[in-house]
């Protein structure tokens, strides 16, 4: 028996070894071929760059037919195949290229986004935004720099995007994404039930104090309505918004309890543990104790808007003009007698910041096999009206019609195979070709008001390099969820003690190191951009 055991182990060992060898052999392949995309990309642009060098007049070598892989987040609209066929007809004739529009769907989109960029799979164009971590990906080399490609492959696009926007998206001095030029605002504003406000003669919410009076009035007069709509993301949907209106934050979301005020952008302080935080948390606790939002808010999974449209709740602390407009339309469709009011924070803060150019864009990943053609195609998508309107609104007559200059959907969103911006075409919007639904006038009107007080976004251009404090960052994430979230939800009875515990934990997790490093990086950023 023993002998057999020995033999078994040796066989086992040999099998393992073989498999490891096989693994290594394969990984050898793996290594060399996953090295190859970057090799290829470094070769192919130069190779193809040398080709147009011979025929420099054209600027772009289209002799070889290629298929471009285009990746966008979210779900594909139902009529995509028809749109894609139309686009390909034109693209084949004009660029000798066809394009495959791929969509990640919203399921695990962040994970798939990472996989697409790290697996070396050929991807030619991919969406970027501040919330897809454009800055970190660009910094760690996931995208190709476009500075030299642009004049060769997409001179028109280079002209089309204003120079200051190109400057703004630069990471370490290089352009990695083509920013969208459409100007919009995603600053927050109070959303409240205007009809109820009038009925009970409550103040118009303008700041936290008046908003609290409004909530209080609702609680007293409408005991069955929950005054404030809130869900488990108490940081993003509550604390960050609260600080935006109450503490003059520069933008955000600011991580690790960092505080920076728009009025004093050069000064970085720790919001966690500050008197400012204590005051904020006291207000929130009061709201919780008075029952303005559910006690178990940390487990609520509704959207913020659903309770408003169904009449369950009477206010959202902050939402952007676009979403407010959507909520209102949805609410009015079932309750035409209600009214929904909106006060942009700009009215109190005195300014609004249009979205940073990083907010919407398209980049060319390292693994792209045809970066030049990809860029040339993207140029068409943005600057050519046929391409642009087709991919933003679908086929005219079938998906939409234009009436008095307004976009009008054929049928409704449940029957139409390509609703407005059905491909999530936020990034290649071209202000000149944009069509708006009549209902969008409300948003435009708000935007006009905000235009009058517009100031630049000072925050989004900042690129945080967290490679030196990655473990601490993970630990702090945990501390925030475990010890600060209950405070954000107003659940901790003794705030002083709660903050103290949380701060102890945060300090143990390395808060100081992280905040100091962030401070240094921020100082370097403000100095380089001349922000004072």
């Amino acid at each position, binding site marked *: 028996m023993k*002998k*057999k055991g020995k*033999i078994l182990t040796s*066989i086992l060992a040999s099998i393992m070894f073989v*498999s490891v060898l*096989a*693994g*290594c052999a*394969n*990984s*050898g392949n*793996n*290594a*060399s071929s*996953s*090295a190859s995309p*970057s090799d290829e990309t470094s070769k192919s642009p130069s190779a193809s760059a040398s080709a147009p060098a011979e025929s420099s007049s054209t600027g772009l070598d289209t002799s070889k037919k290629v298929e471009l892989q285009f990746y966008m987040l979210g779900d594909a609209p139902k009529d995509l195949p028809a749109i894609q066929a139309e686009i390909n007809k034109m693209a084949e004739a004009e660029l000798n290229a066809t394009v495959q529009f791929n969509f990640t769907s919203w399921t695990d989109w*962040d994970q798939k986004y*990472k996989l697409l*960029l*790290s697996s070396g799979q050929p991807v030619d164009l991919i969406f970027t935004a501040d919330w897809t*971590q454009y800055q*970190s*990906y660009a910094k*760690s*080399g*996931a995208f190709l720099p476009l500075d030299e490609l642009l004049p060769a492959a997409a001179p028109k696009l280079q002209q089309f995007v204003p120079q200051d926007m190109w400057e703004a998206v630069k990471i370490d001095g290089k352009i990695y994404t083509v920013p969208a030029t459409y100007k919009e605002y995603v600053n927050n504003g109070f959303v409240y039930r205007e009809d109820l406000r009038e009925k009970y003669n409550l103040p118009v919410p303008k700041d936290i104090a008046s908003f609290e009076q409004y909530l209080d009035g609702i609680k007293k007069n409408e005991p069955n309505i929950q005054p404030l709509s809130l869900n*488990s*993301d*108490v940081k993003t949907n509550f604390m960050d918004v609260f600080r935006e209106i109450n503490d003059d934050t520069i933008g955000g979301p600011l991580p690790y309890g960092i505080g920076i005020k728009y009025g004093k952008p050069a000064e970085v302080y720790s919001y966690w543990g500050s008197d400012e935080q204590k005051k904020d948390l006291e207000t929130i606790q009061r709201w919780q104790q008075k*029952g303005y939002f*559910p*006690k*178990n808010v*940390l*487990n*609520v*999974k509704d959207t913020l808007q659903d309770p408003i449209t169904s009449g369950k709740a009477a206010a959202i602390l902050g939402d952007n003009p676009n979403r407010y407009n959507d909520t209102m339309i949805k609410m009015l469709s079932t309750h035409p007698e209600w009214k929904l009011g909106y006060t942009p924070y700009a009215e109190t803060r005195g300014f609004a910041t249009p979205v940073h150019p990083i907010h919407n864009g398209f980049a060319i990943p*390292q693994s792209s096999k045809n970066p030049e053609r990809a860029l040339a195609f993207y140029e068409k998508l943005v600057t050519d009206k046929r391409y642009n309107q087709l991919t933003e609104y679908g086929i005219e007559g079938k998906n939409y019609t234009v009436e008095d200059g307004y976009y009008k959907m054929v049928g409704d969103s449940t029957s139409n195979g390509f609703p407005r911006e059905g491909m999530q075409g936020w990034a290649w919007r071209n202000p000149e070709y944009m069509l708006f639904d009549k209902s969008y006038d409300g948003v435009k009107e708000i935007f006009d008001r905000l235009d009058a007080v517009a100031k630049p976004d000072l925050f989004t251009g900042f690129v945080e390099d*967290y490679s030196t404090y*990655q*473990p*601490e*960052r*993970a*630990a702090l*994430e*945990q501390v925030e*969820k*475990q*010890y*600060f*979230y*209950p405070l954000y939800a107003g*659940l901790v009875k003794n705030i002083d003690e709660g903050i103290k515990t949380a701060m102890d934990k945060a300090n*143990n*997790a*390395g808060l100081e190191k992280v905040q100091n490093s962030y401070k240094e990086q921020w100082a370097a950023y403000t100095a380089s951009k001349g922000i004072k």
Partner: protein
Amino acid sequence: MATKRTLLKEIITNRILFIMLLPTIAFFLINSYVPMVGVYYAFTKFDFKRSLFNSEFVGLQNFEFLWKSGILTKLTLNTLGYNLAFIIIGNVLAIVTAILLSELRIKWFKKLTQSIMFLPYFISFVILSVIVYNVFSYENGFLNTLLKSLSIEPVDVYNTPWAWVILIVLFYIWKNLGYSMIIYLAAITGISDEYYEAAKIDGANIFQRTWYITVPMLKPTFVVLLLFALGSIMKGQFDLFYQLIGNNGVLYNATDILDTYVYRSLKVTFDIGMASSAGLYQSLFGFVLVVTVNYIIRKVNEDYALF
């Protein structure tokens, strides 16, 4: 008992058996063993421009986020505790229900209840979390509405960590009972009637027959389930915890497991190295445990051992 042979000779004698096993070997080579090179990610700094083996070797740096958090022990214990509860309670209940079910005489009842017990398996944890919230929410959940109508103080379940220790185990079993019960039910079906007949003649009553025949006959099945569960004792059930607990930090002390921690830590940054290191930690833990337990089982009864 077969005599010792060399591998080559064995292949020739049992060539048909080898051929029959070939698809399985190929499958695991392609699907599992070759991608295993990725373990190396755990020791490198991920770089978009360089391939795996050209990436910078950073030693154990990727593991830092696990122990620097200061809660690795706690997470490990939580994970172990929950999984042990799942394994023990889950298996005991599955065996009990399988035995009871196999003895039922009314056919339609037997079939219907069996099917119904399988239903929870289809309810995803996303859906379950919505139901659970509806039952336990403080202001207008099922439970508190009931308590209020009986003039009893409402309870705040979502602020009571210990309650979730019980609830999580309960929901896990609720969801998986039907599944593991079937395994035992199939095993019981396979037990030859001759044993029972013989026992009856010896005067054993139904309780004795169950205890002395059925239960021992289920041991090999139990061992398989046990060893598989032990191997992944540091992993798994992410969805259960993530959906039911989510952002509720109040409950983390009692309910946070390794998987949820890793998920949260890496949600914002994509660090393949860190993800791999966490996976490796889980694997090593399970590996040591399984090899040990398998060794003990082999000592007791060689037939039951997995390998």
